[in-house]
């Protein structure tokens, strides 16, 4: 029997792989739900802080915070890159990095320098490899990322912007559209994009404690943190969705492979039997 034993070993090993991939698929499927719930939980805070920001911009039109003012010349661009800690999630990270590289190349051709803050191990490994300056890093955020774990990395970028070391900050992450599709997006974080409601009806102002600048600074910082936090959660949901799809495909491929190999195995077995019978018949005829 030609290679019968080898084929059965192969089939068994693929069966084991299939068990692993289908388990991973089911785990990811349940995690998508949880990460979507997390995303929904952060929505009220985002809504409220946006409302407060709106009120603030109307109340104090004469004071402009540095974060709201664009620079004339862009010498250095900062990227906050949200990636995953683990692999096996299809082309999720690769597609994201491709987009970043294209954008970085564009800025470099204009003579601007680039710098990155990486969230997640995949981004740090990739951008270290191609020698991009990494200003700060955070990883192991887990299934329930805490905003406290991100504060440090965000502050590094904000400080650099304040000191005019960086003139433009982008945030890059995978947006969760639905289970089947995740879209890499690049959004401008600083300077804050202009708000559209510019008609000031009546002039009024808050009583500030301690003072307007400090408060505005706190509110804007919290706003940016909430923004980045939301991006991390979007990316987390995308990661699980992408992993589920990748594992689903892998499970299906394993099934197909097993079917093919079983066919080969049966053919080989049948050939061996036929050969044996013809040998016996041939032997009997010779006697």
């Amino acid at each position, binding site marked *: 029997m030609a290679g019968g034993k080898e084929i059965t070993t192969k089939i068994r090993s693929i069966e084991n792989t299939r068990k692993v991939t289908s388990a991973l698929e089911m785990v990811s499927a349940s995690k998508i739900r949880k990460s979507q719930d997390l995303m929904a939980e*952060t929505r009220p805070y985002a809504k409220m802080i946006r409302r407060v920001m709106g009120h603030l911009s109307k109340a104090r039109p004469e004071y402009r915070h540095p974060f709201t003012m664009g620079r004339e010349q862009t010498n250095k661009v900062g990227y906050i890159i949200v990636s995953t800690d683990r692999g096996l999630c299809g082309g999720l990270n690769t597609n994201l990095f491709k987009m970043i590289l294209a954008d970085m190349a564009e800025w470099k051709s204009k003579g601007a320098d680039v710098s990155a803050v990486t969230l997640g191990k995949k981004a740090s490994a990739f951008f*270290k490899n191609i020698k991009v300056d990494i200003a700060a890093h955070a990883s192991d955020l887990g299934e329930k990322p805490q905003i406290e774990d991100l504060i*440090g990395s965000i502050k590094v970028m904000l400080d650099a912007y304040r000191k005019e070391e960086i003139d433009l900050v982008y945030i890059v992450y995978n947006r969760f559209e639905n289970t089947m599709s995740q879209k890499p997006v690049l959004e401008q974080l600083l300077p804050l994009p202009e708000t559209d409601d510019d008609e000031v009806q009546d002039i009024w102002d*808050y009583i500030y404690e301690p003072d307007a600048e400090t*408060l505005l600074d706190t509110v804007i910082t919290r706003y940016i943190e909430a923004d980045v936090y939301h991006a991390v959660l979007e990316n987390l949901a995308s990661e699980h969705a992408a992993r589920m799809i990748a594992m689903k495909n892998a499970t299906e491929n394993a099934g197909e492979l097993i079917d093919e190999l079983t066919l080969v195995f049966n053919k080989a077995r049948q050939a061996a039997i036929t050969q044996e019978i013809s040998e016996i018949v041939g032997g009997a005829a010779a006697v």
Partner: protein
Amino acid sequence: MQCDIVSARKTVYSGEAKLIVAPGAAGELGITPRHAPLMTTLLPGAVRVIEPDGKEVPVLIGGGIIEVMPHMVTVLADSAARAHDFDESAARRAKERAQRVIDGTGGASEGMDIAEAKIMLKDTIEQLRALDRWRKQVEHRK
């Protein structure tokens, strides 16, 4: 007066209130309807919401921002105490992690440094104190 208390992770409280007592940065604040517009940072502690029927709801916060409008109060609560030196130490550690990535010495040990421990201690003490105050008040009323 509409009162909304939100933290990064959830809506903590949302409803009508006739009085709100909050630990403002410059002292305790008592807010009744038609208060002048006010905005201030909050210290770690308890925000007490008194509902129209006199029921008191205490909400523990780790600091944050309060925005008072004549008919609306919004509390943006931080889930943990934040202070300048806390943020500084967090930033420093993020930079150190980046350095480790670059050097390729990715050690798993990431100890808490003193600034952080101090803040956490302060946070805990403040919250305990607020809880204690509230408990005493409840007993007092009995």
